[in-house]
């Protein structure tokens, strides 16, 4: 598939850079593959947790985090293929209705990492429509720079759960690798977020 076959023409690296520009102290979860490289290209941070596996789980990790940290904004940035594998999360998130959760799909309409095979969104499956039907507080599809500007203005401030599918071109970029050891990513994220409490209390000891 050539890049012109995606219904989007935004550049994914520029999109992710713009999405993250206003993040402040927001916590970030990325899905496996390209969205992880995109976030790493913007700059590695301790408050980034990159999910290198567990396809379909990124939005649910975001939900668990958002429920645990209701005062912090949580942003999930993942791929269309990754989101399609966990569509039930739309229903589960909508029912929990966390006000502090935003989920953004970088929708290139292909499984980029595995050879650019078209995903269901290429054939018209409407992720934002599904999120809206599930009961997200807001859901939109972003096609243009001006749509993206509007999204970025509300991404961290509007009442969640928010969903956006950003249509990007199929262009591939250099792979920028962030750290990939899972225990390291977990510990540094918890240390940045929880400080000393990261060590864990011994609460719950049976006696």
């Amino acid at each position, binding site marked *: 598939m050539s890049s012109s076959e995606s219904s989007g023409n935004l550049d994914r690296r520029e999109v992710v850079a713009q999405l993250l520009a206003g993040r402040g102290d927001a*916590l970030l*979860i990325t899905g496996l593959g390209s969205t992880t490289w995109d976030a790493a290209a913007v700059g590695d941070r301790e408050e980034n*947790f990159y*999910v*290198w*596996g*567990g*396809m*379909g*789980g*990124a939005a*649910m*990790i*975001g*939900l*668990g*985090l*958002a*429920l*645990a*940290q209701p005062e912090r904004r949580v942003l999930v940035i993942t791929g269309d293929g990754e989101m399609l594998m*966990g569509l*039930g*999360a739309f*229903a*589960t998130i909508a*029912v*929990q209705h966390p006000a502090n959760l935003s989920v953004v799909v970088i929708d290139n309409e292909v499984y980029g990492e595995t050879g650019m095979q078209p995903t269901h969104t290429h054939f018209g499956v409407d992720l934002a429509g599904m999120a809206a039907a599930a009961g997200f507080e807001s859901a939109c599809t972003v096609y243009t720079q001006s749509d993206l500007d509007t999204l970025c203005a509300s991404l961290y401030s509007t009442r969640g759960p928010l969903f956006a599918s950003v249509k990007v071109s199929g262009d591939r970029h250099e792979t920028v690798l962030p750290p990939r050891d*899972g*225990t390291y*990513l*977990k510990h540094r*994220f*918890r240390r940045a*977020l*929880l400080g000393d*409490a*990261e060590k*864990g209390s*011994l*609460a*719950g*000891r*049976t006696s």
Partner: protein
Amino acid sequence: MTDDAQIGEYPRWPEEIFGVLCDAEVTQVAYVPDAGHARLIELCQANGSMRSVALTTEEEGVALLAGAWLGGARGVLLTQSSGVGNCINMLSIVQECRFPLLVIVTMRGEWGEFNPWQVPMGQSVSDALGNAGVIVHPVDAADEIADTVAAAAELAFNAFRAVAVSISQRVIGSKVWK
């Protein structure tokens, strides 16, 4: 059932598990309903300091609880034995990151099962979880359930391990099924 742990119409072990979860400071309870978990789910839903999260599939719970731990919270996944099969790839996140995980599995396809379709997954629970890096504590006596869950919670949250307690169909008994 003629077990000591059962008084009157309802068995006492769901209340006992609930007490253990409170002591362990569990605040996120993820589940796909199973008849064997019905009473425990009710207790958790009625508790103001626990967030009950109904899932569409059990693997969502594995990811949810990883996120909970990232945010400093403890959770539990309640699942029927068949739901274990839905979790396998998501458990790779738990193993790779060494996330604590507490799972309580109510067994089907095992003691006195009448539904043949439950048997394949029920009989695979222990091996499947073991292969996915989850320590399994089987329990088949009602009066050992609470202690087993408490030990599993200790191993999960204080020794940072993935642990499942599988409660035999033998204990769950016929009363809960109808």
